[in-house]
C-alpha cells in the first residue's frame, strides 16, 4: 500500500471515530452550543454565558461554545436556527420577552412556535424609577400627576416606542384610571442614558427592567416605586410591588432557551434535563446571586403555554394601547 493511501485511510478512521464519539454523546448532552442574538456584553450574552459557566463548573456538560449572531432585531439568529436545524442538535438559543413583542409587531416573521421552547430560566420584572428627591413617593402619586396633566409626567425608557418598557407603564397608568394613549414616552439609547434622563430632571419617571435599575438605584440617586413582581423579592425586599399598591399588574420579562425545530424527542428531553440540572447546582446559584437574577423556571410544554399566555396578554395590551392596529 502506498503511504499516501495509508494516511488517507487512517485519517478516515480517525474521522469516523470522531463522529461516533459525537453520536454516543447524544445519549446525554455533553456539549452545549449557545446561540446569542446580540453582541458580547448585553443581557442575553450575560445570561447565556452565566448559564454556560454554571453548566461547566457543575460538570453538567463538559464543553460549551458561544456564538454571537446579531442583526435583524434578533431575527437573524432565529432564522439561522430554523434554516440549519438538522445540525443544531445541541444548540440553545437564548431569547426573552422582546421576541414575543417583535413577532407580534412583525419585525421578524417567526415566533416561538417555530422553535422548540426548552425552558425559561430567569425573570426580570419591570419597574418604575424616580429620582431620589422627586415628589413622587408611590405609584399613586405618579398616576395623580398624570391624570391632572399627562404632559407633567414624561416617561423615560431605554428602548423604542412600543416596547415592553413603554406599554407596561401605559398599562399601569390605565389601571390607575388614566388614559394610556396620552402617555408621553421618551426613548433613550439604553437604560443608562434613560436613568441619566430622570436624574437631570428632564423626565419624571423611568420604566425599565429591575436588574438594570437595581444596579443603578443602589447608588442612592434614584428610588424604585413599584415592581411588577407577584410578591416582594427576597433580593430586594424593600421595593413595593404594584399589586400591593392596588394595581393588578404582574409582568415577568423572562429569559429562556429554545432549541431547533424538529429536534428528536430524546434530545428534547435531554436538553430540558441538562438545563434543569444546571439550574439546581450551587454553581448556578453563585452566578444567579452575582447577577441579582430571579429564578423563573418553566419547562417544555409548561413554558410553551406560558409563552402563549404572555403573547395573548401582550397582544391585548398592545391593541388596547394602539401599538398594534
Amino acid at each position, binding site marked *: 500500500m502506498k503511504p499516501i493511501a495509508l494516511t488517507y485511510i487512517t485519517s478516515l478512521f480517525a474521522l469516523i471515530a470522531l463522529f461516533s464519539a459525537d453520536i454516543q454523546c447524544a445519549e446525554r448532552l455533553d456539549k452545549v452550543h449557545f446561540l446569542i442574538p446580540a*453582541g*458580547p*456584553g448585553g443581557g442575553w*450574552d*450575560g445570561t447565556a*454565558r452565566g448559564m454556560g*459557566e454554571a453548566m461547566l463548573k457543575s460538570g453538567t456538560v463538559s464543553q460549551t461554545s458561544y*456564538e*454571537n*449572531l*446579531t*442583526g*435583524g*432585531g434578533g*431575527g*437573524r439568529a432565529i*432564522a439561522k436556527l430554523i434554516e440549519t436545524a438538522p445540525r443544531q442538535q445541541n444548540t440553545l438559543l437564548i431569547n426573552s420577552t422582546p421576541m414575543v413583542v417583535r413577532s407580534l*409587531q412583525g*419585525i*421578524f416573521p417567526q415566533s416561538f412556535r417555530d422553535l422548540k421552547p426548552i425552558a425559561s430560566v430567569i425573570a426580570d420584572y419591570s419597574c418604575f424609577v424616580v429620582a431620589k428627591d422627586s415628589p413622587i413617593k408611590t405609584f399613586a402619586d405618579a398616576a395623580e400627576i398624570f391624570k391632572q396633566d399627562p*404632559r407633567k409626567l*414624561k416617561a423615560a425608557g431605554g428602548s*423604542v*416606542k*412600543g*416596547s415592553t418598557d413603554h406599554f407596561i407603564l401605559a398599562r399601569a397608568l390605565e389601571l390607575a384610571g388614566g388614559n394610556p394613549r396620552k402617555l*408621553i414616552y*421618551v*426613548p*433613550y*439609547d*439604553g437604560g*443608562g*442614558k434613560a*436613568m*441619566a*434622563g430622570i*436624574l*437631570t*430632571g*428632564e*423626565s419624571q419617571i423611568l420604566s425599565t427592567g429591575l436588574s438594570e435599575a437595581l*444596579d*443603578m*438605584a*443602589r*447608588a*442612592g*440617586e434614584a428610588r424604585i416605586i413599584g415592581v411588577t413582581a407577584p410578591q416582594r423579592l427576597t433580593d430586594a425586599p424593600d421595593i413595593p410591588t404594584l399589586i400591593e399598591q392596588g394595581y393588578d399588574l404582574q409582568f415577568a420579562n423572562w429569559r429562556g432557551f429554545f432549541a431547533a425545530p424538529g429536534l428528536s424527542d430524546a434530545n428534547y428531553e435531554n436538553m430540558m434535563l441538562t438545563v434543569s440540572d444546571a439550574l439546581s447546582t450551587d454553581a448556578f446559584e453563585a452566578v444567579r446571586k*452575582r*447577577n*441579582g437574577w430571579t429564578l423563573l423556571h418553566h419547562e417544555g410544554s409548561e413554558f410553551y403555554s406560558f409563552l402563549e399566555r404572555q403573547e395573548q396578554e401582550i397582544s391585548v395590551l398592545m391593541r388596547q394601547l394602539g401599538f398594534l392596529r
Partner: protein
Amino acid sequence: MFEGILVGLATVLTIQNLLLVFAGCLAGTLIGMLPGLGPISAIALMIPITYALDPASGMILLAGVYYGAIFGGSTSSILINAPGVAGTVATAFDGYPMARQGKAGKALTIAAYASFAGGTLAAIFLVLLAPYLAELSLGFRSADYFMLMVLGLSLVSAFAAEGEHLKALLMTILGLMLATVGTDLTAGVQRFTFGRMDLIDGISFLLLAMGTFALAEAFMMVLKPSQSANNSLPTTDLGLDRQEIREIAPVVGRSSVLGFLVGVLPGAGATIASFLAYGMERGIASTADKAQFGKGSLKGLAAPESANNAACTGSFVPLLTLGIPGSGTTAILLGALIAYGIQPGPRLYIDQPEIFWSVIVSMYFGNMILLFLNLPLIPYIAKLLTIPRTFLIPLIGFFSLTGVYLVSFNPFDLQLMLYIAVCAVILRLMTFPMAPVLLGFILGGMLEDNLRRAITLSDGNASFLWERPTTLCLLVLTVIALMSPLLRMLMKSALKGFKDKQNASRL
C-alpha cells in the same frame, strides 16, 4: 485624599497585581489590535477570568485590558488605516498619513505619549473634581446634547481643504443619510431598509469606517502602486525633538480637558470627544499648520489620541459617582463591579474609600504600565509595514473584512462594505474628502434622537433652544464657529484697510 491615594497604592502595589496589570495591558493591546474587537469585547471576554480574583486585582486587570485595547485600536488605525474601535477613527486622519511618509514609529510614539498624557491628566481631574463633575454630567439635557452635536457638525469645515467646503458639506450629508438607515430609535419604525432584515439594525459605524478608510485605502494602494513604495523608508525614527514636544504639549493639554469633559457626559463618549478635539485643534491652528492637517500633522494625531483616552477616564465619573454607565464599556464595568460586591455611587467614596481609590489608582497604573510596555515594542510593531505590498495589501483587506465579520457574523455586511469601499474610492479619486462622511454618520444619529427627545420634552415648542443657559451657550458657540471664516475675512480686510490708510497717511 492623600491618605486615600496611599491606601489605594497599598492595595494595588503587590507583585501579583503588577503582573496582572502587565498581562492585562498585553492582552488588551493584542485584542485591541485585532480588527473589530474593541474595549467592549476585550473586557467582556476577560471578565470570566477576573471572577477568580479578589476585587482589587480584578479591577486592575480590567483597567489594563481597557487601556490596552484602546491603544491597540490606535495602532491599527495608524499602521493600516483600519480603526478597530470607533474612538480611534480620528487617529487615522493624521496617523496613517504619517505612517505613509515612513514615520510610523514616530506616530506610534506620539500616540503612546498622547494617550498617556491624556489618561494622566484625566485621572488627576477625576481625583480632584469627581464630585463636582457629577453635577455637570447631570446638568446636560437632551437639548444640550442636540446643540453639542450641531456644534460638532459645524466643525465640518475643519475637515475640508481650502475652498472645498461644499464638497465636505456634501459628504457630511451623505453620512447623515447613511445614519438614518435602520430602525428609528424614537418611533421604532424601519427606514430605508428596503425590506431587508440585514438592514434593520442599521449600518454599523465600524463597517462604514473600515469600508471608507481601510478597504478603500487597500484599493488605492492597488490603483496607484507608485505611491505605496514609501513603505520601505526607515521606520526607526522614533524620538521627538524639543521643538516637536513644544508643539504638541499645548495640544495635548487642551484636548485632554475637552476630552475629559465630553467623556463625563453620559450621552456623548470617546468618539465624539476625539472628533471634537480634532476639529477644535484644526480650527484654532495657524494657516500654515492648518494645511498640514490630514497630511500627517503631529497636532492632528496628538489631539484625538489624548482626547480619546481622557474621555475614557472621564466616563468613570458618572459611573463611580452616580452609578450611571454612559457607554457600552462602562456598562460592562458596572456589571463587573457589582459582581465583586462594589456598589458605585456617591456613597462609595465614603463607605469603601479603599475600593474607590484602588479603582482609580489601578486605572492610573494601567495607563502607566501601558506606556512602559509599548514604547520598547513600537519599533517592532512599525516593522510590520515593511512587509512587501503583495502581501501587505491582502492582509489589510483580510483584516478589515474579518474585523467587520467578527462583530456581526453576517456575510451581507461584507458585501455592503465592498460597495461602500468602491464608492469611497471613486469619491476619493474625484477629490472628495471621506472624514466628513464619518462625522455626519456618527453625529447624525445622536443629533436626531436628541432633537426629537428635546422636542417631545418641550411639548413641541422650539423654546428648548434658548430656555436653558447651557443650550444657549452651545448655540452661541455654534454660531461663532460657523461665522468664524467670515469674521476672519472681515478682520483681515479691516486690518488691510487700516494698514492701507496708515500707509496712505504716511505718504
